[in-house]
């Protein structure tokens, strides 16, 4: 083997990708999909303020603090250090790209050399 893998493609994933494509189109044109003018109920308009950050947090936090379905029991985990640095960098510089770069600069040495 040359170490190159192409993974397995399954039809289910392709359907999900199609669904996500429809969601991109629908969310980006949400208020001009219909020809007639209409309004969201008040609670839904307010909910729009909170749902995106909640969705990101729900995906991101378990990926940082959990391993195989359990909360990590050790502090020797590269992800927590990288995430902590990432958050500090974001609020200091307001730059997502720098957050990724410096976060990975913490993550990779800990992960590769210490095996955290």
């Amino acid at each position, binding site marked *: 083997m040359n*170490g190159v893998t*192409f*993974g397995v*493609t399954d039809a*289910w*994933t*392709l359907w*999900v*990708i*199609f*669904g*996500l*494509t429809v*969601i*991109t*189109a629908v*969310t*980006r*044109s*949400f*208020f*001009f*999909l219909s*020809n007639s003018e209409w309004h969201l109920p008040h*609670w839904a308009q*307010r909910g729009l*303020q*909170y*749902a*995106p*950050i*909640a*969705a*990101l947090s*729900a*995906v*991101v*936090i*378990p990926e*940082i*603090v*959990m391993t195989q*379905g359990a909360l990590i029991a050790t502090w020797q985990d590269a*992800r927590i250090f990288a*995430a902590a640095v990432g*958050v500090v960098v*974001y*609020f200091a510089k*307001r*730059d*997502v*790209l720098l*957050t*990724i*770069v410096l*976060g*990975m600069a913490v*993550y990779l040495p800990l*992960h*590769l050399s210490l095996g955290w």
Partner: protein
Amino acid sequence: MFWQRRLNQHPEFKHGLSDLAPQAFGQIAWALMTGVALVKSGMSVFESVAMTLCVYAGSSQLAATPLIVAGAPAWVVLATGFCVNLRFVVFSLHMRGYLMHLPRLPRIITGYFTTDIAYVLFVRRFSHPEHTDEGRLAQEAYLAGLSLANWSSWMLFSLLGIALANAIPTSWGLGFAGILCLLGIQCSLASSRLRVLASLVAGAVAVLAYALPLKLNIVLAIAVAVLACLMMEQVKAQKAKPV
């Protein structure tokens, strides 16, 4: 859209291209990283390419990928993608005034190509919708220029990232760059106390309810966080009322 001559021959089209160029440059590393992260979090190359070409929404791609790999049911993946994309719903309300003179299909195609960057640059240049045919054409041409520059640079570097990913061993853990990217976007959205609360509640519920089947912890976390914030708004509003 940008393939139409009436738009890409218009002088505003070039303005759109050149206004987006510096942004596209800044986006190179992000696009590369997204391509690498898709493959390194366990999607096949074909799936990653299909997702990149079709979905064209970096944050929803990155959020959906761990769920797809974990075998979550389709509706959970789609609901999560929808919630991550809800910021576009807010943009679309603003863009409505600029686009309603177009027929429905061109409107939706225009919407599909209007990313965060394109939206921000567009409303910065045109703070009000034009009402003459000439003015509308100029706006449409400018948006088409932005869209072409944004789409082509994103696609080029995402696909390059997917190609490069195969040269990098999965054990390096580069998929984590995708999580850091989402974390950065999450921080950028934390613009009010209640949004910080939404973030904390959703994170805690997602961890506590992790044992739920079908990745339902994600859906539960979003629902609890949004409800908690709406309730806090009510409480605040009542406190603010003079007795």
